[in-house]
């Protein structure tokens, strides 16, 4: 990747307003490798694949099309840290390009606000840009504080990998990209059962108990594998495993105590960024995991 890499930055609603510490970590890492992020003025919800796509494909298509045209005006590919946004924007972008009827409909919806989809940009997720555009070699060169001895279970997020006909960045059943991004920090990734299991998050507002039961299955397997922490590439999965972990423990009268990191947080720590600079505000205590790699807060 050249020095001139520029992307239209699409953090998504959850990262922007609920987990800005993820955005802080993303920006620290991307900035260190000369990636410039351009603000997408006026962007809306991507919109999210469960509550909008699930209720109306047409509405989902229209809002996604509008967001895509904002990046088209900037003449930059979109970069997002959220697999949900990635899935929506990538699916819409690909659909409009390949299916004339979808494109026609998108432009009908856009005509009311004087916008037009032209099909000039691509959509990327941070995992792919870090792993394959910046590359593991460059990342390795920036590690100042190797996280040796830290045992990590990785969780990708369904929409980063599936449907694979759409994303195609890694094997949906045996993914390796995130594992390699973790290994580059000096940490070890541990194999564990149910690695590609969904977090259950999307159905939390429909059936909380079932949503939690799915997350429980993963947390139990991570614990059995003896991992020090779980590293995720999706803010929605992070909410489910971190913010909801205590509620899940209560629901099933169990204890997991599994710290959860977003992948760029781990990379920042290994690059020598102080924890307070990127917030690292988590619900499940992370101190034990940090102490293991000799990082102390404050």
């Amino acid at each position: 990747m050249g020095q001139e890499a520029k992307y239209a930055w699409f953090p998504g609603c959850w990262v922007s307003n609920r987990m800005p510490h993820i955005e802080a970590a993303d920006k620290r890492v991307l900035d260190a490798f000369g990636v410039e992020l351009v603000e997408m003025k006026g962007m809306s919800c991507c919109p999210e694949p469960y509550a909008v796509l699930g209720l109306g494909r047409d509405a989902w298509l229209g809002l996604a099309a509008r967001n895509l045209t904002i990046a088209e005006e900037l003449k930059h590919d979109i970069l997002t840290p959220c697999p949900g946004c990635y899935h929506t924007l990538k699916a819409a972008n690909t659909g409009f390009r390949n299916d004339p009827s979808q494109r026609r409909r998108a432009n009908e919806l856009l005509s009311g606000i004087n916008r037009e989809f032209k099909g000039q940009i691509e959509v990327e997720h941070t995992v792919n840009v870090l792993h394959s555009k910046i590359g593991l070699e460059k990342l390795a060169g920036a590690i100042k504080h190797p996280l040796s001895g830290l045992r990590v279970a990785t969780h990708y997020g369904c929409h980063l990998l599936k449907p694979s006909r759409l994303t195609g960045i890694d094997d949906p059943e045996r993914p390796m990209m995130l594992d390699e991004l973790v290994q580059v920090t000096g940490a070890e990734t541990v194999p564990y059962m149910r690695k590609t299991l969904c977090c259950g998050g999307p159905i939390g507002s429909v059936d909380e108990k079932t949503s939690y039961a799915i997350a429980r299955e993963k947390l139990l397997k991570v614990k059995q594998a003896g991992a020090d922490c779980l590293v995720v590439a999706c803010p929605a999965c992070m909410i489910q495993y971190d913010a909801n972990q205590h509620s899940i423990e209560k629901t099933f009268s169990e204890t997991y105590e599994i710290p959860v990191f977003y992948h760029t947080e781990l990379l920042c720590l290994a690059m020598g960024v102080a924890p307070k600079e990127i917030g690292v505000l988590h619900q499940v205590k992370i101190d034990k995991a940090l102490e293991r790699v000799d990082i102390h807060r404050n």
Partner: protein
Amino acid sequence: MAAIDKLRALVEKEGYRKKLAICYQCGTCTGGCPVAYVKSDYNPRRILETAILGHYDEVLSSDLIWLCTSCHSCLERCPQRIEVSEFLIDLKNFAAENGNIPKLLLERAKRIAETGQSTPSSKASVVWREKLNLAPISPVKVEEAQAILQAAGFPAMLERTRSQADGTRS
């Protein structure tokens, strides 16, 4: 056209029928389904079977279809390459049109329709961003987002469902 007729028309369309009717009920979709694993009455194979057999009313009024997380494991693993999870999205769309939307999901969708965001900016998030030296988030052009959703008939559908639900309760 009523939602049930739209579903019938979709399933009975030549190309679509070809896609669905090749299901030989092996149950791979259900075997790999994260929801079915923890909740035995959720069974994507059976939902597919019900639709193929033409019991459209049963499918559209089902609460169970809303449990699909859209993880797309079934789509990846189906030996017949049936896109089960995409079909479930179609089913949810028709069910929604028919007034079957779970209450909290309806609220979530309404929030997006009104604000253009799934989690709107708050006083706390503004302060938090400042502390992390992040620039303020560019405000959503709500009127543009709303215009598009309106053209797609989204807020009207949500409103119809809400008033139907109120009618049932009274």
